[in-house]
């Protein structure tokens, strides 16, 4: 994939994050490019994952800390963070990545990056991270939503 294609895909994914958070969470997000290196492992407590299949197979994921997931899902539902069950947090993060993938898919319609999506799932564990058996093509984008940080990654399999 050429750099310009990466740029377009990243722009569509970033726009999808902005749209999903504005409409479903009610808060504005900003992309944070300040730390430069997008290849580092990002640790988190809850990761929503979707497999996507187009010209290439890829994994799209959204990683959050437990505290940030509680804040964001509470904004989505209008519930106090302490009222949210673990299952609801996991479901909320999975649904966020589902909608980000769906929104980006709509923005990419008619391009070579257009893809099919699978049902989302969630990886849970304190300070977990994802390791690959071989070097793969990937990029990770950092966003801020209020005080919360979140990472959206795509890895080509």
């Amino acid at each position, binding site marked *: 994939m050429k750099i310009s294609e990466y740029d377009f895909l990243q722009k569509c994914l970033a726009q999808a994050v902005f*749209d*999903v958070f504005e*409409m*479903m969470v009610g808060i504005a997000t900003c992309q944070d490019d300040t730390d430069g290196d997008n290849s580092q492992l990002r640790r988190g407590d809850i990761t929503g994952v979707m497999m996507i299949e187009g010209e290439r197979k890829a994994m799209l994921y959204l990683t959050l800390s437990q505290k940030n997931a509680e804040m964001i*899902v509470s904004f*989505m*539902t*209008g*519930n106090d963070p302490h009222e949210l069950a673990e*299952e*609801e947090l996991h*479901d*909320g993060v*999975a*649904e966020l990545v*589902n*909608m980000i*993938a*769906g*929104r980006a*898919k*709509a923005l990419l*319609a008619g391009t070579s990056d257009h893809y099919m*999506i699978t*049902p989302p799932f969630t990886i849970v564990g304190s300070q977990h991270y994802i390791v690959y058996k071989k070097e793969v093509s990937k990029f990770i984008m950092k966003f801020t939503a209020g005080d919360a940080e979140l990472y959206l990654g795509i890895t080509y399999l």
Partner: protein
Amino acid sequence: MKILSVDDSVIIRKIIRNGVELLDYELVEAGDGLEALDILEQSSVDISLILLDWNMPGMDGFMFLQKVKEIATIKHIPVMMVTTESEGANIIKAIQAGAINYMVKPFSIEELMKKIVECIGEGV
């Protein structure tokens, strides 16, 4: 009056509940198509509108929509798709199968309420 939300996401059902209750409707929830059919087959449950996700485990939204439109006692109930599926071909497929409206996720609560009112009018 009652609205049935069929979605495998408990969080989406909660968000829908917020909009439905602001319109003074009551929300009934199902996590998939089979559970929703069980609810609809109970004659005591009077549903005015079905809000239907597409991608669900078990019986998906499209299969459920086709099933509803085959059953004489429930086929009159209006169905609105509420889904991440945004491809024009799928929208046409759902409308041809009997859905009367289509809303793509993500959505704002205001958009949800507007679409519900378009389908069945203001709450009681």
